[in-house]
């Protein structure tokens, strides 16, 4: 049976007392082991939602529960943040220490982990993200992707079961993006890490278990990637596009090619094209 690690009920949040709320009446739950993606144009409230998930912001109305703990309860703040880690967009602005190892230790020091337990946890966390050789380096000399992996290790060392990624790949080059995304995918598959993946990249969202589309603070669309990306009209209203391959597939279908709907990734496309070729050979 799946347990919901994060439960958000009718949550609204506004930065100013009166004025348009940045998050409006959002309800969603995130089960253990899930890989959920959140899409939305600039200013649609994704980051605000993310910060509501670990108590960085408290909802103006509604409740957010992490492991059944209400984020409005001040006594639980540190336990909630330990359970729900967060990786931010700018790789430079989230590493605190001058040495990688010490940065991974930062969270452990904060929650009072005994000194003798730290080295093993740090080493394991760095190994999980493939950064063990860099333990004694300065973060300044790492690439953007490597810095983000160190940030992930920081959350893993704290034994967070869920990590919220707020556009963690937005400032990386394609290689770094791939590097970070595949590390996260592996952690999700092999370690059962629960992932909330906020992104601008449709290709990344297409690989999630479930996609949420936000527009002006509301969740306007929710479902599996193929469900969500079949709503080209709603996506367009939200200033979003389908993943490039999906667009190509739909164009081809309009031109009369026999391509099935729900093409989300390059692999899907390859499969469809192979099928088409095979069937035209037979003719």
């Amino acid at each position, binding site marked *: 049976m799946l347990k919901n690690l994060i439960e958000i009920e009718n949550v609204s949040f506004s930065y100013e007392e009166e004025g348009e709320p940045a998050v409006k009446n959002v309800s969603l739950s995130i089960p253990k082991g899930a890989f959920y993606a959140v899409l939305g144009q600039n200013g649609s409230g994704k980051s605000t939602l993310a*910060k509501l998930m670990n108590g960085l912001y408290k909802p103006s109305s509604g409740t957010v529960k992490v492991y059944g703990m209400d984020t409005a309860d001040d006594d639980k703040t540190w336990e909630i943040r330990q359970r729900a880690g*967060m990786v931010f967009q*700018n790789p430079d602005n989230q590493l605190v220490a001058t*040495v990688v190892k010490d940065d991974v230790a930062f969270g452990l020091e*904060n929650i009072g982990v005994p000194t003798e337990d730290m080295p093993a946890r*740090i080493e394991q966390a760095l190994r999980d993200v493939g950064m063990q050789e860099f333990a004694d380096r300065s973060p300044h000399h790492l690439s953007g992707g490597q810095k983000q992996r160190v940030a992930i290790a920081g959350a893993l060392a704290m034994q967070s079961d869920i990590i919220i990624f707020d556009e963690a790949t937005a400032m990386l080059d394609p290689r770094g993006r791939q590097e970070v995304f595949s590390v996260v995918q592996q952690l999700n598959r092999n370690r059962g890490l629960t992932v909330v993946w906020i992104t601008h990249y449709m290709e990344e969202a297409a690989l999630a278990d479930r996609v949420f589309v936000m527009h002006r603070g509301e969740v306007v669309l929710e479902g599996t990637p193929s469900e969500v990306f079949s709503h080209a009209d709603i996506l367009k209203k939200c200033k979003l596009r389908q993943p490039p391959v999906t667009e190509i597939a739909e164009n081809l279908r309009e031109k009369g090619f026999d391509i099935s709907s729900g093409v989300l990734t390059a692999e899907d496309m390859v499969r469809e094209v192979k099928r088409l070729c095979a069937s035209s050979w037979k003719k």
Partner: protein
Amino acid sequence: MLADITLGQFYPADSFVHKMDPRVKIVLLIVFIVGIFLAKNLIAFIPAVLFVILAARMSRLPVRLLIRSLKPLRFILIFTFILNIFFLQGNLPEGQEPTPVLDWWIIHLTAEGILQALLYSLRLIVLVLGSSLLTLSTSPIALTDGLEMLMTPLKVIRFPAHEIAMMMSIALRFIPTLLEEADKIMKAQTARGADFESGNILKRAKAMIPLLVPLFVSAFRRAGDLAMAMEARCYHGGEGRTRLRVLKCTWRDLWGAAAAVLMVAGCVLISEFVHII
């Protein structure tokens, strides 16, 4: 261009001095400084010089690095030496006349004056060498940890020891990042026709504005992001915090302390009993 300024000036090596407890090293530096100010003449200075040479040998630092640390000092050294030989006459006991060396026009040089000018310069050199030995042989992390521990007793009078140490380590972490950014902004502004190099001081200072404004804006944004990230990682001040690196005193520190005590004792005793100037 700005990138060659490295993190502090730490020079990693595997040596006796590198392995010493940073707290002890900081205290020893203070003791050492007191010692060299207690040395009243050149002979009394011998223990201090021996101490520096010993520490330098035990630290396995390249000599050129130590020499380089004196480089920014060269003008001050020459300037004070020249001023001092003109004005110092040496601390002679009552009634004793200084020995003139050169007496020409308004210039009156005495042997005692020259010796004392030498002493003052030597004091400055040894002072800088001692401090450089500390910063070269101690990583920034160890240095801030050591300072934090040493300042901890001051918490009783509400001195923010942990906060200051945290600020120092964050500053160390962000100095290279901000330097790199300054470099980028400078290039971007130069590409738009900004001129940082010509004109008088006033004009050049004014030219810095298009560099400083974006740099500050970005530094504040970074500070906001970083604060958010630190909070997300459960940072809530120094209370209940454990540490990855625990400082431990060892026999090395004992030897270091013994050497420092001997040095100070030597400086004081020789100053008491030997009078050359």
